[in-house]
């Protein structure tokens, strides 16, 4: 809230996804791949199997190029992006779990050094020494998951930590173990998805055996991941689960994400069984690519679901993703945001300029102006009102209503709403009145958003807040004084280009 804002048209969330999704795929590959490579080399040594050794050796080049380079840089990238788009939030997380990260760093060093040594010493040191390095890599990589998993799961289900503020209460939180199982399965999935490509390049006579071998690993990964997922879902607090499960999930989109993820996993399992285990001669780079995509889709879907149900929090029931602390709400409503943030105060005493600064401080971490989650589209406008008024026939009215009004007016029907509006002709004659109505709606929306703050603070201390019944379950409350609320309403109303843009507005903001 008291940090400057970095403008990125793409939207902070989108940018984070661009960095984080490849990172988590590669990071899980680094864990599962390490394990698979170490097991494979161990088997190769035992059986004196040259092709198995080659599979391990070639995979280790991929591992090093992808994970110690791209994985490490994109891992740093997550911090970089988080610091740019939600500095207060990432700062709070780091202040809470710095020792966790410090411990992870130790394992990270072991992992990276072992990876480099492993790759560099093929054919140059004894088999036993090389195996030792490979297994040390596995230990380092897996232990870093063991640590980071505590921090990631803490964010969604802080559990006892909310009351005790004790490090280990938050670390071994309710979803810790299920998530560790799930991620172990995912790691195996990611590893096989990559290694199939390596196996396809093996000599013809051994290719099928190698693919079948990888196929069993893939099946194991699917089973472990599925078990972990169901366990994860089962231990989620009811209030969180109900957001995407049950007859009427509060966030229908997340319910769809869940189905998508589970169907992707099913597809990966079936493909793996058919193309790798039963009929490996059918395997081609194209089928391998489809399989890898299915595995990524499951993983991506799950991550989206996990992030989605956590919204609008970074740390559930403690800290919102725009950096607002739940405990700070009353004070900020009382004395105002400008009193706490020089960056907001730079916006002036009141009016649209202060409103703009408030928007940047509170809303811009999720809403862009016209891009991803565009605020202009989320808000009603005079053109929206006119479109509904002008809609002819129930179907057109329904369509216009659903597109522009239903998000905030679920309790009335399209035609009922049309009846409440002045006619299109009257609207044309009295643009002032329309602007007034529109600004009134925006101010009323902000009031609703500020009222959410009371619901958040009224929730019992130490328990997870149930967001489902809120006006906007995916948004933090608006905080600020009445004057700040009016200023933000002024600013948001000024975004309405309306039917007849005035010259001053044509230049954008």
């Amino acid at each position, binding site marked *: 809230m008291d940090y400057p804002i970095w403008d990125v048209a793409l939207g902070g969330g989108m940018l984070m996804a661009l960095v984080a999704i490849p990172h988590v795929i590669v990071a899980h590959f680094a864990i599962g791949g390490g394990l698979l490579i170490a097991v494979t080399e161990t088997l190769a040594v035992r059986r004196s199997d040259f092709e198995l050794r080659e599979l391990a050796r070639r995979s280790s080049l991929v591992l090093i190029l992808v994970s110690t380079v791209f994985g*490490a840089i994109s891992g740093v990238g997550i911090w970089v992006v988080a610091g740019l788009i939600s500095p207060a939030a990432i700062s709070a997380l780091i202040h809470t779990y710095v*020792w966790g*990260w410090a411990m992870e760093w130790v394992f990270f060093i072991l992992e990276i050094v072992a990876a480099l040594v492993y790759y560099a010493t093929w054919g140059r040191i004894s*088999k036993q020494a090389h195996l030792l390095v490979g297994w040390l890599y596995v230990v380092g990589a897996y232990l870093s998951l063991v640590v980071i998993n505590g921090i990631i799961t803490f964010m969604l289900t802080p559990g006892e930590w909310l009351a005790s503020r004790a490090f280990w209460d938050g670390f071994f939180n309710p979803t810790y173990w299920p998530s560790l199982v799930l991620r172990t399965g995912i790691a195996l999935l990611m590893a096989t998805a990559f290694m199939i490509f390596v196996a396809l390049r093996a000599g013809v006579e051994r290719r099928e055996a190698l693919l079948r071998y990888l196929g069993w690993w893939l099946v194991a990964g699917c089973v472990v991941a599925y078990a972990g997922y169901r366990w994860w879902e089962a231990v989620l607090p009811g209030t969180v689960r109900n957001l995407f499960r049950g007859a009427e999930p509060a966030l229908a989109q997340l319910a769809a994400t869940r189905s998508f993820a589970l169907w992707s996993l099913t597809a990966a399992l079936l493909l793996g069984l058919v193309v790798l285990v039963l009929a490996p001669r059918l395997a081609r780079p194209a089928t391998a690519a489809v399989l890898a995509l299915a595995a990524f889709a499951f993983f991506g879907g799950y991550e989206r679901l996990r992030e989605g149900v956590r919204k609008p929090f970074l740390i559930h029931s403690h800290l919102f993703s725009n950096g607002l602390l739940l405990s700070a709400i009353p004070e900020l409503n009382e004395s105002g945001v400008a009193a706490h943030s020089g*960056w907001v105060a730079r916006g002036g005493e009141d009016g649209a300029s202060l409103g703009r600064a408030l928007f940047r401080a509170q809303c811009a971490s999720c809403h862009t102006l016209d891009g991803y989650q565009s605020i202009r589209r989320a808000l009603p406008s005079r053109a929206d009102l006119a479109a509904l008024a002008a809609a002819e026939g129930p179907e057109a009215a329904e369509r216009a209503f659903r597109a522009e009004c239903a998000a905030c007016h679920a309790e009335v029907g399209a035609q009922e709403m049309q009846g409440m509006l002045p006619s299109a002709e009257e609207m044309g004659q009295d643009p002032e009145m329309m602007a007034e109505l529109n600004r009134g709606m925006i101010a009323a929306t902000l009031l609703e958003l500020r009222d959410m703050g009371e619901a958040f603070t009224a929730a019992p201390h130490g328990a997870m807040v149930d967001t489902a019944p809120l006006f906007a379950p995916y948004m933090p409350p608006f905080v600020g004084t009445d004057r700040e609320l009016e200023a933000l309403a002024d600013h948001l109303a000024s975004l309405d280009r309306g039917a007849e843009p005035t010259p001053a507005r044509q230049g954008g903001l």
Partner: protein
Amino acid sequence: MIPNLIPSLDAAGLPGPPALFHVLLVSTFFLHLLFMNLTLGGTLLAAVAHRLGGGRGGDHRAVLAARLTAINTYGISLTITTGVAPLLFIQLLYQQYFYPATILLGWAWLGLLALLTLGYYAAYLYKFRGLPARGSGGGVWIAASALMFLLVAAIHVAVHLVSVQPERWAGLADGAWSVLADPSYLPRLLHFVLAGLGFAALVATWWAVRRARAGVEVELNTAIAAWAWRWVLWTTLLQVVDGFVLLVLLPQPVMRGLMLGGATTLVPLALAILLGLGLLMMAARTAEPAGQPGLVGGTLAAMLLAIAVMSVTRHQLRALYLAPFTADAAPTVVPQWGNFLLFAVLLAAGLATVACMLRRVLGSPASGAEAA
């Protein structure tokens, strides 16, 4: 009223005494600097050596370029790995200065990721597609890699300077690129570049001297050592000059703080200056380092010490820059001693494991059917 643009301290407080985290920040940053010097200086030096050697494998400079690249493809990984820890601690101790600076230079700071990735893969391309693998060519890759790392350094220096001067933030937010007008910007960047070149050249000399003493390709290694040693000499000379320029360009209050800081600031500073001059004298003592392995080893030890001391001075300078703003900001401290202990034990165990692993690897050479 001028709004106070510095964000408030994090309400969560520090999970340990500040001094502990300052020590961790400086010591992990020192570790990072060692690999960073090899990456930045080593890549630049390799690019120059490649060019001067005509891009063909037979030349001693080309061999040096290949050697530096061989180290670097691993060294870059370690630069990033060791960089993670200071990045963690800086976000803990200086978040209210660090984040605004990165945000104000947002695109550049984000661009760092792309530059690092490109620099890294370019180095690999040189290794696999250029002179080290094929005996010639690939100069574009190593030059590109060097340029990327140079830009990374330039961004780091800019972010640092913005972070320690909150009085510049308002101007910067309004679009004035005032950082680049900071008189100390270029000398400061040069300070890092010269340190990198000097350190990489010294490590290369040391290695070549060792090889020559062991009787391996004596003529070649002697030539490499002599060539790299000249780089040690000249970069150190420039470094001493640049160091004084930088000192003179410090803002008045910072300079005063440094000079009036008593032993805590003056001892490291004096030591750094003495080490710089000492290094210069050692480097000037001979033009044939292969004949004086003791001198080369001693120079390397002195340079390591100089880097360590400069890490401390750099940290103190930041504190002095920020002194007017941090006066009444004392974070709440809620120590987690158990976790610190666990971290310390894990760190010791982790480093011991790495050491054992390396010993085992070095002690188990094998080839042919016996090898992995």
